[in-house]
């Protein structure tokens, strides 16, 4: 059975007919071609499919597409502005926080949700915010550093 949903994705209005058992990650990847959102486990364990839904970081494999009806979604494709990397993306590149890159979109979006709420997080707050995003490559150290640096860049930018 299909149901029509209307939502905002990366600032653009989207209307689509989706199966009622279709997950948000399937909708984003298969129907809309937004493959920056990754599918790592389908169980909400790994965090690779993290997107921001109405301001909160969620595992899009645990959300049905129909549940996102009326919602506002940010995926990794919507983060850079006018071809310029978001400070989080830039810091991940500059600080060596990316290896295989499969956890990166989800990791960045979890960090974005954190910084939107807490512009000046402690290291423990950063680690807690990304503790649902598994990374097997980096040992997290450079990711934590990158998020700290991005927070600083955003703060300075907003002060000026």
């Amino acid at each position, binding site marked *: 059975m299909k149901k029509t949903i209307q939502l905002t994705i990366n600032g653009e209005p989207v209307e689509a007919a989706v199966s009622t058992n279709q997950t948000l990650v399937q909708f984003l990847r298969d129907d809309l071609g937004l493959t920056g959102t990754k599918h790592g486990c389908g169980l909400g364990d790994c965090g690779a499919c993290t997107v921001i839904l109405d301001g909160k970081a969620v595992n899009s494999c645990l959300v049905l597409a129909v549940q996102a009806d009326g919602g506002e979604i940010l*995926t*990794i494709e919507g983060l850079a502005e006018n071809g310029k990397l978001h400070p989080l993306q830039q810091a991940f590149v500059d600080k060596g926080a990316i290896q295989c890159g499969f956890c*990166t979109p989800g990791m960045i979006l979890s960090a974005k949700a954190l910084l939107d709420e807490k512009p000046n997080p402690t290291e423990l707050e950063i680690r807690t915010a990304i503790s649902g995003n598994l990374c097997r490559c980096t*040992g*997290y150290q450079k990711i934590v550093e990158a998020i700290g640096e991005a927070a600083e860049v955003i703060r300075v930018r907003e002060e000026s």
Partner: protein
Amino acid sequence: MGDYRVLNTRAPRVDGPAKATGQAKYADDFKMPGMLYAAILQSPVAHARILHIDTSKAKKLPGVKAVVTSKEAGLIKYGVSPARYDETLFAHDKVRYVGDEIAAVAAFNQDTAQEALSLIKVDYEELPAVFDMFEAMKEGAPQIHDEFPGNMNAEVHQEFGDTEAALESCDLVVDHTFLNKRQDAAFIEPHSCLAVFEPTGRLTLYTSTQVPHYVMRTVAMTLQIPVGNVRVVKPYVGGGFGPKCEATPLEMSCGLLSKITGRPVKMSYSREQVFLHSRARHQFFAEMSLGVMKDGTMVALKNKAVLDGGAYTSFGIATVYYSGSLLGGPYKLKSMKYDGYRVYTNKPACGAQRGHGGVAHRACFEQLIDMTAEKIGMDPVDMRLKNIMTTGDMTVNELDMSSLGMKECIEAIRSGSDWNNKKGKLPRGKGIGMACGFFVSGAGYPIYRSDTYHSTVVIKLSEDGGMANVLTGSAEIGQGSDTTMAMIAAETLGIKLENVRVYSGDTDYSVDLGAYSSRQTLMTGHATKEAAEEIKSKIALYLSEELDVPVASITFGDGIVKFDGGPGNFDKLRTSYIKEHRGWTDPPSGEYLTFREAARLAYLKAGTIVGTGKYKPPKLGGSYKGAAVGTSPAYGCSAQIVEVSVDLETGQITVDGMTDAHDCGLAINKMSVEGQMQGSLSMGLGECLFEEVKFDSRGRIINPSLGEYKIPTALDMPKIKSIIVESNEPNGPYGAKEVGEGAIMPTIPAMLNAIYDATGVRVNELPVTSERLFMALKKKEEGV
């Protein structure tokens, strides 16, 4: 160290922006018109004879395009090492583990493919199964492969010197045993493959692999397609760590189904299927004796290994050799004896994982050194330094340490962690421990016996001269090899990193054995350097002809060309370049001839300028049986100190800090080197404290998810102090060697030695959960 412009810096990865923006494409991100979706039927029972397979209902399901079993796939045996090809794509006579592949289906969507699987009827006659390696070795145990009586997949017996006599002569002999648990590599991207068979007879696989070259060979063999008609393309890969080092049933099924249907076919493993496919770290049982003199001199090591291989060989032959050969260093020994046994059980096959074959035995050995040091009253750091090998030493099993900064690593972590003020001075419940290790910079020999080059590289200049395109079959799997090759090419050509583009992971580009055994920096690096040098000499030759100057007077660097160290007279070249490119945004300028202008001249003289490079190691190692495994042109090494706090009431362990030093030769990209070091530590920490693939009594995995199989999160990892130690490796390009695997070697024993320091309890079984440590503490209190 040389004066480098690109190398030895902290360069952001060339693929960073693509990965940070979600533009980077992984295998599961591909879609093609008319694409079918596939799924594999796997055995629900651990050991059974297949009496009958009925696919008729599945074939009739609307939307199903093909159903294949061993009838369609044939019974061509494959595996990793030709000496032990023991798998067929689909089981035909019997299944040997829960997950063994029986059939595959292609349908117009995923749901239909799954439904079709449920309609395939398989009649099994269940057989007794065996899940424990020691049980499997007993007389009367269920036989898993007829060809291997006693379930003995492989045996290794090696001895260097007279070990028994040497042990007799020692002042002290200390024994230890150790047991790790089966691991899952837990890369975040599950395997995925898209196969496209064209009417021309050509098959292309877009697949998540570490080894496009080996996948190409295996798929060509099993699907009976001429190898020239098989192309394997590796898009971005979401981690591998070893298990993606061989062709999978997923890849072969997609290829076969595409060949049969003439349509593109895609399949991705679920997370549970990743666990079922496994090919990750074995379970090892180690039994060791170390003989030393009173002054701490190590003399002899006796080492026995039993490996639970699971139902097939996979990489296991190499694994069982590595468990012995990788203890030959980094300490001087007079003699060493090794007996290794790899045993079949009715579980998923184990294979290679980071630190291949060496990790568990290194853990046992490094604990044993600490136990011995304690008995003779020596500081563990001093004991290691007393026996340490240095550059130029040869191990007892003939591994040549052509560079070895092991001593420098130990000294770096000793001061970096403030060891001298902590060891023996911490309160109960706090502990500090250390360990060392080393690893190959690329296996000395290919998996199949061959005189093949291990790496070839092609560099092709753009016709305007502004871009060097590096074409390589090497596999970027997250470790940063594309960036490494770009840096080596840029340095060698004397141009900026941004003027190099790397095209990799495609068997059509070049030959490369792939991302395993920490080989690409050294081997692909050599080939890249050689290709760039050829380009340079071609350009120099044409410049010399055109400007009538000697070749020897021409030097390249910083994007410009100098003649006898000066600008020379190149006005004519500049004028014509600017004329040819009128209206372009970036005309060459400055007082020196640019590389771009020089490369353009070469193009005008000779057409597209191409340089090729190649590398294979010289003949390495001794002449004894199995001497090839463990050989390498160079060895990286690592030393670590770990500090822990243990809650003595609960056994809960907190890792407070890790200090890690690694000798990688010249650090091509310091940021990537640190990334490999820190990632290794996190995998080691997980294996030590949490990770264990568990089975029920019928051989079914009970924790096949990343929720129940726990890997470290950001909250589990302490601050790591990473210290890069740079030796100058004569056999490495620009003196570089490995970092990807050597760095995991010391992690587990350093942690276990720290736990002992904190508690007085010597744990010899992983993982050290709070329950296991609590029980051990209780036992100690009760004086058992």
